[in-house]
């Protein structure tokens, strides 16, 4: 396999993945910090490097609507958005998933207004948690690129056929230049494979209707079937990851663990903050503190059993959420408590809300969390379940 080692941003890497995949249709509307991604892709369209039909629409609601139409017509479809753009897509997200259309959407995670803020947190993605989309979260530009390529194979798999979001942290990953390994065009094409349309509207010899009214007699059954599809996703994600590893040597799973095997304590955190946390874990390991990390990659569907097995042996867990649920625990914390429910052991758990609206997640904050976690593991006592870190007081 030929690879190119390049210095690019997360947005640039995702645009490159889309270029190599060459979707039939992209419909997009600009929004910071995802603007740059589709802007780069639109230049590929303009320069004839892809033959994608780029539909310039008047809003994100229209962007997702056009994507749904194009996907129902029988096309391979992608778009990208962020924050308010995703929020404006809200009703269409459910329609894309309920209609089982495998649309791929890089989501550059950004805070939601008010107050207005353009920087990175997971409020947007967590708000779309229940839409029926697959969600993969990326730590860095390489993962964003790799996840975008894998997302097409996962979403388009004939056992699944649901849309997928590939998430990366706004600005921290989308606009930072990192070293990324690009896969050769031909290898990406071969890996992703030819798109197979299922029940395309443009198959005029077999007319059909999309989007029927289904009331009390069948709606419940359709939703039951939709849940069942999501239970098939983990197997496909792992199969695709295994193929991807054969091609690139880069290993992916449902989540990543770091020095967790013999750990007594664990930090659970997603996306770019995992990188900072790993460095601090190394420092504490050098001091003899047995701590490890679990970084969920696939947030929807959520791998409860697998995560429970990976955390079974720890005494205390700190879950770091880069999103909030006002009046509730952080969304990741809620899922981890759901996983812990099936364990025989019951580790003590704390929830820290960090980095909202792009607030820096500093090494010193990871150290504070770890110092507290050591006490929690020792005493088994939790003073406050949910707290904010890095807040100016």
């Amino acid at each position: 396999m030929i690879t190119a080692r390049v210095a690019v941003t997360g947005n640039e890497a995702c645009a490159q993945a889309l270029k190599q995949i060459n979707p039939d249709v992209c419909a997009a509307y600009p929004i910071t910090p995802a603007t740059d991604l589709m802007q780069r892709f639109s230049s590929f369209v303009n320069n004839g490097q892809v033959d994608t039909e780029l539909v310039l629409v008047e809003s994100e609601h229209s962007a997702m609507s056009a994507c749904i139409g194009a996907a129902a017509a029988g096309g391979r479809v992608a778009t990208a958005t962020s924050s308010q753009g995703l929020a404006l897509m809200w009703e269409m997200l459910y329609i894309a998933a309920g209609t089982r259309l495998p649309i791929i959407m890089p989501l550059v995670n950004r805070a939601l207004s008010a107050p207005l803020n353009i920087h990175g947190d997971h409020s947007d993605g967590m708000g779309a948690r229940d839409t029926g989309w697959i969600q993969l979260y990326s730590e860095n530009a390489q993962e964003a690129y790799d996840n975008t390529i894998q997302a097409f194979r996962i979403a388009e798999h004939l056992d699944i056929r649901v849309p997928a979001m590939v998430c990366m942290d706004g600005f921290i990953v989308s606009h930072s230049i990192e070293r990324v390994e690009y896969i050769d065009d031909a290898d990406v094409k071969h890996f992703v494979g030819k798109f197979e349309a299922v029940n395309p509207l443009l198959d005029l010899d077999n007319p059909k209707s999309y989007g029927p009214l289904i009331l009390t007699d069948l709606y419940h059954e359709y939703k039951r079937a939709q849940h069942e599809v999501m239970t098939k996703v983990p197997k496909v994600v792992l199969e695709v990851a295994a193929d991807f590893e054969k091609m690139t040597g880069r290993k992916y799973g449902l989540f990543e663990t770091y020095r967790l095997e013999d750990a007594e304590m664990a930090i659970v955190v997603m996306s770019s903050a995992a990188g900072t946390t790993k460095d601090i874990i190394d420092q504490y390991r050098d001091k003899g503190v047995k701590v490890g990390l679990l970084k969920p990659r696939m947030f929807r569907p959520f791998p409860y059993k697998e995560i429970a097995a990976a955390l079974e042996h720890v005494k205390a867990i700190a879950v770091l959420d880069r999103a909030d649920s006002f009046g509730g625990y952080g969304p990741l914390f809620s899922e981890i408590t759901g996983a812990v429910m099936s364990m025989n052991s019951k580790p003590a758990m704390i929830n820290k809300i960090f980095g909202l609206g792009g607030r820096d997640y500093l090494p010193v904050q990871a150290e504070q969390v770890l110092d507290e976690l050591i006490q929690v593991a020792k005493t088994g006592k939790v003073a406050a379940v949910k707290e904010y870190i890095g807040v100016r007081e």
Partner: protein
Amino acid sequence: MSKKYWETLPQGSVVLEAGSSAKFKTGGWRSMRPKWIEENCIQCMFCWMYCPDMSVKVTEEGKRAEFDYDYCKGRSNRK
């Protein structure tokens, strides 16, 4: 192993049979029943234009015919 009922539903609720909406007789939704009084009718065809369900039938000669009560929901009930 036999499939559960919900496992047999078409993917994404796509309706694969063309024109099958004719099987869905929506006249049962009607709460007010329109009545066509032939001797009062001036053949303006406003009712035909107004009805979104094509429940106002027209003869081959282009004249107003009886309502199709299988689909008429009584929404454009006029005196």
